[in-house]
């Protein structure tokens, strides 16, 4: 044997992808630092203080947070600049994501502080904004969960938007005639009729999911096309019925609104109590579903089989797992979750149905599913990010900063895009996602 020359091992401390990402993050931090120092810090020199209210009059008391806008923006700007420098020079290794989260938090904090100090009001309710964040995240999270259930078994569900909208419509139409009249006994914040409406919405979601399942699993129609068609169908159908039927029968479009329930003791905690523990059943329902579906997918026999079907259906099949049945059931469970989320738009919020009232939340839910890496907890985290963006642009509208609120409203979205591009990296969908399984 001619011994091959022993070469030293290649030393790859950071892979090209890591280096690229580090550079990207570093530049992002520097860019944010420039924004903070140039726009916020300079302008806020004579702006004085800002106040974040941590309690509303009815909440358990909590002190206000009052700080000097000039100082806060200056400090945050310097920290961001330092972070950018370190990131470019050597990166933060395993801490990259944590640092990113901190950086983003600081930036948003400084931005809000500046915007508040700018405005003539000089103060705003932080507790209100956080509560809104949670409420706004609910339909997105539920939509994302529906996507997770379906895509974990490799069926792409683009029909979430349609399922939400269908649920919203059915819920109010069923619940309205069953309620009304003298004051009823409330079960968890709603008369029994409201609950029947929710049940009907869940059923409607399951029905739409069943259509998706049959067409894409049994008849192997392209899943994207089926999903789009279902959404278009539901949008058209509900719009038509709302205009032609509900408009003439307003009593059918006056559903009960689920009332908030404060969880004893927990809701008395200052700040956190009102933010987390004083909501209606849809919000708590989404928390519970996230926990339950995580448990189902990652701890139970059912979940193991479902994930196997999504990753390698043939392997599952060779072990006697029924690929088709697993797919049907999961897609339909996903539909139930989406139907529940749909009911939130009407019974959980305004009590009436309006044409196309989901307004793309289902598609944002789809995005949340991807950002959340096909995991229920990730889906909720992503849902919260979108909810926060929503709540923040609402807050900025109230503050009247002098800059067009449409423009300011974009800031959170731009921040979100920056984060997602940097943070998500290469998310890996279930290996068989979107591929029909055809047996010999």
């Amino acid at each position, binding site marked *: *044997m*001619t*011994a*091959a*020359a*022993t*070469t*030293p*091992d*290649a030393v*790859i401390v950071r*892979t*090209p*992808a*890591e280096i690229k990402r580090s550079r990207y993050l570093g530049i992002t931090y520097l860019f944010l630092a420039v924004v903070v120092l140039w726009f916020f810090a300079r302008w806020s020199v004579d702006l004085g203080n800002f106040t974040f209210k941590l309690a509303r009059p009815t909440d358990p008391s909590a002190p206000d947070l009052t700080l000097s806008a000039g100082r806060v923006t200056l400090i945050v700007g310097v920290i961001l600049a330092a972070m950018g420098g370190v990131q470019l020079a050597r990166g933060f290794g395993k801490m990259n994501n944590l640092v990113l989260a901190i950086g983003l938090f600081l930036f948003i904090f400084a931005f809000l502080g500046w915007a508040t100090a700018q405005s003539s009001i000089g103060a705003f309710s932080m507790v209100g904004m956080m509560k809104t964040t949670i409420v706004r995240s609910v339909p997105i999270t539920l939509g994302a969960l529906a996507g997770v259930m379906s895509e974990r078994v490799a069926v792409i569900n683009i029909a979430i938007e349609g399922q939400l909208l269908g649920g919203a419509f059915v819920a109010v139409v069923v619940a309205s005639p069953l309620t009304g009249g003298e004051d009823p006994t409330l079960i968890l914040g709603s008369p029994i009729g409201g609950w029947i409406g929710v049940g009907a919405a869940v059923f409607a979601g399951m029905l739409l999911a069943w259509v998706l399942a049959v067409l894409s699993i049994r008849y192997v129609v392209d899943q994207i096309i089926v999903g789009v068609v279902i959404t278009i169908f539901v949008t058209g159908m509900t719009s038509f019925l709302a205009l032609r039927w509900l408009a003439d029968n307003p009593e059918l479009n006056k559903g009960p609104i689920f009332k908030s329930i404060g969880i004893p003791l927990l809701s008395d905690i200052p700040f956190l109590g009102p933010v987390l523990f004083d909501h209606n059943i849809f919000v708590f329902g989404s928390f519970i579903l996230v926990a339950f579906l995580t448990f189902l997918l990652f*701890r*139970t*026999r*059912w979940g*193991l*089989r479902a*994930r*196997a079907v999504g*990753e*390698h259906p*043939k*392997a*599952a*099949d*060779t*072990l*006697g*797992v*029924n690929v088709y049945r697993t797919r049907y059931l999961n897609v339909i469970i996903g539909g139930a979750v989406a139907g529940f989320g749909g009911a939130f738009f009407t019974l959980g919020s305004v009590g009436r149905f309006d044409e196309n009232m989901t307004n793309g939340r289902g598609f944002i839910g789809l995005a949340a599913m991807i950002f959340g890496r096909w995991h229920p907890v990730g889906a909720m985290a992503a849902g919260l990010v979108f909810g926060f963006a929503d709540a923040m642009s609402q807050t900025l509208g109230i503050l009247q900063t002098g800059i067009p609120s449409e423009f300011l409203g974009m800031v959170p979205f731009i921040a979100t895009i920056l984060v997602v591009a940097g943070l998500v990296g290469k998310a890996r969908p279930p*290996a068989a996602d979107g591929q029909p399984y055809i047996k*010999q």
Partner: protein
Amino acid sequence: MATLELRGITKRFPGVLANDSVDLKVSSGEILGLLGENGAGKTTLMNILYGLYSADEGEILIDDVPQSFAGPGDAIAAGIGMVHQHFMLVPVFTVTENVVLGVEPVGPGGVINIKEAKREVREISQRYGLEVDPDAIIEDIPVGIQQRVEIIKVLFRNAEFLIFDEPTAVLTPQEIEEFFGILNGLREAGKAIIFITHKLKEVIEVSDDIAVLRRGAMVGGADPATTTEADLANLMVGRPVELVVAKEDSEPGAQVLTVSDLVVLDDRDQVAVNSISFDVKAGEIVGVAGVQGNGQTELVEALTGLRGVAAGTVTIGGKDVTHATPRQIHESSVAHVPEDRQRSGLVMSFSITENMVLDGYYHEPYSSGIKMDWDSARSKAEELVEQYDVRTPGTEVAANTLSGGNQQKVIVAREFGRDVQLVVASQPTRGIDVGSIEYIHERIVEERDQGAALLIVSTELDEVMALSDRILVMFDGKVVAEYRGGAVTAEEIGLAMAGAAT
């Protein structure tokens, strides 16, 4: 004592009679070697036995009782277990999750008792000497270990009848010996085993009885104690087979391919090719041996421009092509026979003509301006089909209607059908019939004799040894050994493939 019997099994696929009235019998404590070349119908037959396909005719009997399997679940329940040719493991699951999938030990509420599962995996792994880490993720462990997981999977289901479909294809010679040890252990434990292979030596070494399948039909049996490799080859192919490649000694000329300190990363950004250097000279065949997954795929992709280079340089014919595009490399007279012919070698739904001009469609004479000249493309395709002995009804049929061997000949015709200075061929004969293998080997030697430099990557050790003038062994992303062709034994190379040589 249990027996498993197949009677008159027939299975047709569109245009193919995959199994033609096949009979087969195996009993406890016995290893039946099922021999047949690629495409003979071995996998199809076993898939029927395992309930994955349903037979058009024939029956399956266990202890003389006819069985009917609606799916693998029924076959498993009847005591049949199968280690598939292409492993049926979920890459992102742990070893334990893969083993228990489908028969999970559960507590109340369907919660998997993962502790209990791990304990059982450990127990089987100790009892049969199949060492694995129950917590390892499948995609992180080498194929040899993945195979152990497959075996544990079968044993976990208490199978009495074990089917191994070409289990040795992915193993080093040493691992094969180890595997035979496991097979013998299973036989002593009273299991009935069907061992499938197309390698003559193996079937003689380990079987108690041999059955030979050719073109879907059972053409005979043999007694391993008395038969010879030549007899078996004759039976398997239907004619005497030339077991060695005829070639003269090489006369290496100038360096054509020079690789220095090359580092390439895999899809997960791990180092796959770890700072390697070598060269290939004109008129020389350099074979790269190694167990699948030791960086060969990434090496070939980097050389042909399909994958970025993290560090180091590649020159071809004196020109630096480290960061060249695939087309630039192609235009420096490099032929590439890719590893997966159906995914990267051909467009399966395109006609043979279209596939033949895939690399040259954009210039004269196949096109001018934005317009294709199909007449000249067709006449070129006809010429190549003729010259390279592609068995096809015509040049306008889709590539997916050809057999694997003929598909491979289409690729070879396209790639060799012009003047090349370097050939990079990966698994040039994987999964094709003996006739086509012989043909492609002849062509490879012919290219060498015409002065091309050839780099042949193959996990088939026999192929590397038969073709190469020089052999490089890759292990864990490095070239761990280099030999002169003809001056080394399979055992020596095998040790290097397992990383034993340094």
